């Protein structure tokens, strides 16, 4: 068995893998090695951070192994994560933190570990769930006034599956209202801040205007709409999070927050319990710190669900990712249309470097063409608003959610409820959608968009049919924007700009993954996207894992100041590495 032991040297992180024989691995030995290493850390072992930090390599196998060996208990892990959530409250990543239920779940998990009967790799692992998934007994708001105070009577299938595996649900994360947006800035609970705004890497590169005010005004967005989930994973408050992906809502924040964001094939994971945005394109998304973890979570979530008739009935077998060493049999496609206007030169350079990486490793790298790419965002705009107009019709205040006091007639009550409950983004989309569905416009807009969708999907079929295995594209046009700059344009414009590269995969229902690749000049993460064939997640994740190993994305060095109370009361500043 291989165990990785981390040695810290001031601010550098040096990995060394020690092969220890099974019979030498005892708790005492582990502690000795740990204490030797901890001499170099600025953080006192008492705070437990270094302990958590050691487990933060991202590899859940490490955490699971640690839980199994008894080096850390699920309750400890849960408590650490909860206190971390408290100290990173300024990120506004969580809407609801389910403390009591989480601790209860952790205790149950601990009992199972003591009996030697954990439910699986996910037993005791803290996770977070985006707030548009229904969770029984926990408030589900979709960051909207319409559902404030709504306590779901049931668990979404994906949530239930995770809980059945023993995962500990820490809370619900923040998002754009009803998952409409690309910045996680438009929810009623406020915008989510990117943890990288508070990282040493960003601070070193940013020009401080004045010592005290720059942090408050300089923070960058997380991207959206699963920004809260991405921020939660990126700031180490949980080991995996669920998001949803309709136009890039999982991959976009994953790229901006430097985490792995997987959008599975449409029909692989159940959408039962996910409050729908666009029924034909929504999928639950998975956010984790490394590709292996994403494969583990995918393994526990995928499969047919009788409650969701859009899930395929094929048998899904969870897989373990092989360690790819030979990429010479791979064919990587580089779609030239993804060199979209507005793509930053840094990302372009990174993209070329990645292509060269594959070429030098022996893979076949070809330029391909997806001619209808630039229409995908327009097509999405029409189809999305049309489906939104239909899906939002269920919010009338009668059976659940906000209800207005207007009582003159049913229609006026509905109108007043929806006036009060929805913000302007949602209302705008509903009205646009209704416009495109009017009898006089149906053929020209809605049906036309559906035809264009087929053209886009066919583009992909053609490219994959010509022998290409995986497509490599950038995920976003640039690194994360500062909040003050982002809000200068309205939600629709921003979505149209930011979803350009991620949208087409949703149109065609293909799996796609964002792998954090490097840091931009401003010290912010940038990711690249891999798009695979339908239902070929294993191949996609294998290639992504190989790529991840090659690029060695740096870990965030989160700096949390002393006045944010929590676990770091003893030291001036805590360095997470």
């Amino acid at each position: 068995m291989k165990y990785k032991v981390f040695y810290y040297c001031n601010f550098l992180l040096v990995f060394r893998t020690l092969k220890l024989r099974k019979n030498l691995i005892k708790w005492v030995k582990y502690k000795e090695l740990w204490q030797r290493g901890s001499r170099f850390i600025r953080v006192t072992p008492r705070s437990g951070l270094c302990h958590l930090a050691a487990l933060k390599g991202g590899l859940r196998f490490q955490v699971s192994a640690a839980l199994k060996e008894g080096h850390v208990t699920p309750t400890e892990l849960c408590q650490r994560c909860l206190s971390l959530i408290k100290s990173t409250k300024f990120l506004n990543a969580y809407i609801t933190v389910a403390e009591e239920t989480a601790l209860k779940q952790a205790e149950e998990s601990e009992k199972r570990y003591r009996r030697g009967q954990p439910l699986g790799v996910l037993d005791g692992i803290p996770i977070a769930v985006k707030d548009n998934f229904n969770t029984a007994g926990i408030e589900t708001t979709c960051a909207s006034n319409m559902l404030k105070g709504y306590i779901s009577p049931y668990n979404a299938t994906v949530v239930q599956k995770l809980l059945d595996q023993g995962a500990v649900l820490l809370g619900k994360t923040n998002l754009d209202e009803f998952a409409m947006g690309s910045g996680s800035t438009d929810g009623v609970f406020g915008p989510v801040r990117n943890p990288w705004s508070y990282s040493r890497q960003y601070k070193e590169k940013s020009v401080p205007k004045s010592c005290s005010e720059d942090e408050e005004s300089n923070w960058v967005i997380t991207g959206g709409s699963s920004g809260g989930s991405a921020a939660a994973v990126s700031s180490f408050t949980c080991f995996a999070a669920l998001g949803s992906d309709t136009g890039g809502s999982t991959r976009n924040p994953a790229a901006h927050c430097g985490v792995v964001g997987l959008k599975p094939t449409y029909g692989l994971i159940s959408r039962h319990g996910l409050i729908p945005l666009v029924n034909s394109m929504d999928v639950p998304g998975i956010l984790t710190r490394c590709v292996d973890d994403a494969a583990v979570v995918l393994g526990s979530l995928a499969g047919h669900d009788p409650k969701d008739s859009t899930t395929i009935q094929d048998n899904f077998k969870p897989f373990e990712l092989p360690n790819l060493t030979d990429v010479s049999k791979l064919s990587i496609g580089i779609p030239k249309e993804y060199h979209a206007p507005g793509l930053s030169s840094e990302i372009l350079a990174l993209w070329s470097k990645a292509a060269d990486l594959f070429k030098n490793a022996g893979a076949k790298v070809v330029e391909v063409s997806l001619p209808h790419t630039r229409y995908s965002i327009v097509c999405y705009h029409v189809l999305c608003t049309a489906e939104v107009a239909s899906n939002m019709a269920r919010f009338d205040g009668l059976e659940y959610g906000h209800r207005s006091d207007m009582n003159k007639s049913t229609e006026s009550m509905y109108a007043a409820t929806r006036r009060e409950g929805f913000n302007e983004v949602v209302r705008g989309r509903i009205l646009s959608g209704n416009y495109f569905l009017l009898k006089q416009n149906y053929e020209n807009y809605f049906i036309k968009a559906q035809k264009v969708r087929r053209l886009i999907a066919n583009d992909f079929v053609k490219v994959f049919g010509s022998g290409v295995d995986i497509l490599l594209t950038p995920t976003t046009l640039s690194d994360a924007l500062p909040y003050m700059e982002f809000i200068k344009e309205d939600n629709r414009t921003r979505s149209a700009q930011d979803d350009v590269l991620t949208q087409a995969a949703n149109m065609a229902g293909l799996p796609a993954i964002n792998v954090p690749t490097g840091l931009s000049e401003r010290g912010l993460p940038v990711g690249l996207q891999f798009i695979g064939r339908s239902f070929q997640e294993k191949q996609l994740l294998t290639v992504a894992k190989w790529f991840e190993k090659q690029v060695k994305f740096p870990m965030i060095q989160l700096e949390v100041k002393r006045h944010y109370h929590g676990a770091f009361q003893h030291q001036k500043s805590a360095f997470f590495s």
Partner: protein
Amino acid sequence: QKATVEVLDHLEHLALVDFRDAEGVERLQKAIQFAEQLHEVNTDGVEPMDSVLEDRCLYLREDDVTEGNCTNELLKNAREKVEEYFVAPPGNIPLPKLEERETFLQGS
């Protein structure tokens, strides 16, 4: 093509959502303009695509009742209820016309 006031009024009736201000109307006009780009694409002979899973057969399940009996849970979230009923205000009363409604469109 700009949407006329009649169309906007019709949309408000259909959607039961209002254009709060000029910005709302402007947003719709821009959305329509943005969608105009679709007409540049030649889609002769192309069938509309409803779902990416169109090649698979939708299945039927047995007509057995497997869920239900959850009246209490479902009623918990409703604000106004009487015994096992959701209470709604009187129906069959249409939304007031544009002239009588208090809506932003009145001014345009």
